[in-house]
């Protein structure tokens, strides 16, 4: 539980900083299906909850900063929990509603496992820091929230497809 608190504190700190500087701050919830890599063998689904900071650079390009808490709860022997920090850009073509984005960052994750055998119990964990690449599109569902189909790649660990829903937090509304 201590590890999870550490993730939370880090995440909240990042969010506070980005929140102060944000032109637009969005809360997002995502679900993904690992389709390759080690996590594909272990987890049926990975979820994350995060904050997405956006700062426009010009009419077309927006700078992004993402901080997210991620976890996989569906395996009875394995649990994954981790924090993601990503930065990247988003491109919205003129007169289009669909934008494209690309993010690069790191994921720090901890996986706890436990097994109960005949007369023996084993539990432990492994921790990893990995490069994370994420790309996708986003388009509005009505006016807000927006939906983001994405592909997330952690080399060797997981390739995941999924989608996020993001909702603008009421600090400053998006100009889109």
């Amino acid at each position, binding site marked *: 539980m201590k590890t999870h608190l550490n993730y939370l504190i880090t995440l909240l700190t990042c969010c506070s900083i980005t929140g102060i500087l944000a032109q637009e701050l969005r809360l997002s919830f995502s679900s993904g299906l690992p389709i390759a890599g*080690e996590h594909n*063998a272990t987890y049926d689904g990975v979820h994350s*909850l995060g904050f997405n900071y956006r700062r426009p650079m010009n009419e077309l390009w927006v700078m992004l900063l993402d901080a997210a808490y991620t976890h996989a709860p569906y395996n*009875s022997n394995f649990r994954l929990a981790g924090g993601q920090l990503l930065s990247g850009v988003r491109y919205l073509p003129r007169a289009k509603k669909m934008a494209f984005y690309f993010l690069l960052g790191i994921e720090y994750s901890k996986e*706890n496992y436990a097994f*109960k*055998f005949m007369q023996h119990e084993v539990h432990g964990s492994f921790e990893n820091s990995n490069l994370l690449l994420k790309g996708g599109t986003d388009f509005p569902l009505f006016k807000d929230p927006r939906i983001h189909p994405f592909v997330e790649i952690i080399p060797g660990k997981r390739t995941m497809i999924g989608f996020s829903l993001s909702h603008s937090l009421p600090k400053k509304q998006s100009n889109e």
Partner: protein
Amino acid sequence: MNRLSIISLTTILFQGCQEVNLDSLGEFDIGPLPQEVPAPQENPINEAKIELGRLLFFDPILSANNKVSCASCHSPSKGFSDGLDRSDGFSKGIKTPRNAPTILNAAFNGINLLGEMDPSNSPMFYDNRANSLEEQCMGPLLSSKEMKGPEWTEEEYIPFLEQKVAAIREYRQLFYGAFEDSTVSILKITQAIATYERTLITPNSPFDQFVKGDQHAMTDQQIRGLEAFISAGCNRCHSGPMFSDYKLHILGVDEHPDLANFDKGDGNYAFRTTTLRNLSYTAPYMHNGQLKTLEDVLRFYERKRSEHKDVSSSDLAGKFKDLKMSPFNLSRKDEIIAFLKALDDPNFDQTVPDSVPSGLPLR
């Protein structure tokens, strides 16, 4: 409404964030091997008997043509198997009908989930037709395709073999040391070889060490593989310390193309669940060596269908058809293979005697 959504999402997320709760886990029916093997009351272990059994095991004197020893098909350098789909038999052109199983840990055959076993009631062979190591040893000795050859009847061959061995002075001395009686009998030969086989155990694989508390004994990938092995349901048949339930199951493995007659196993095409220990040394796999690699075996289990002309899908074992090799878990195969390698333990006696009492060349 927005706040409510955020609170709900956060609750869902953090529900899964605790450590894995051991109390909520089912107990898995696999576990470590004991460090010692029990011997039957009528055949207690002693050092002299182990040495006698070892020399007999490697000595071609036990075959009618003095060319085939137990080690011909159960070579220490090949994990006490021979690396062939079907073994070379008594003479050139004769092949055994089945793949030579490893004899590593065969002394634990029949061990139950609690690590208990009766060495006098210990299933042997792919069709469980023998009930102890001693009885198993008799099989190849009296097989026309293996050591007896086609020209002798059993009644003729047994006294011939006993006389051949008794004619060697060193063996008479060794029998005296082992049994306090220098008389040579086929029963004592099988007892000595069985006693040697009881020393061929591998209870210290990375998996055994992991289960006993050494978290670093298995790699991360192997630990994932262990979970995948259980999730896929492999442990429903490959259970217990030997990763075998010692039951007969119909899997519909394709027939060996060179066999003149179909091998029907127990009569219904059922064969015993084989151990998963030391698989790295014992390819090819299945009762007739038809699957060359572990990848081939896992692909066979993914297909979950009969590949034998005489076995229909309805005949297949229910546990086989129920395997959860999900198409969404593409990487599961790699992880399971990694885990299977955690059941290897190279620390078994791989020594071969420099010579045997008969003076025959080792084969």
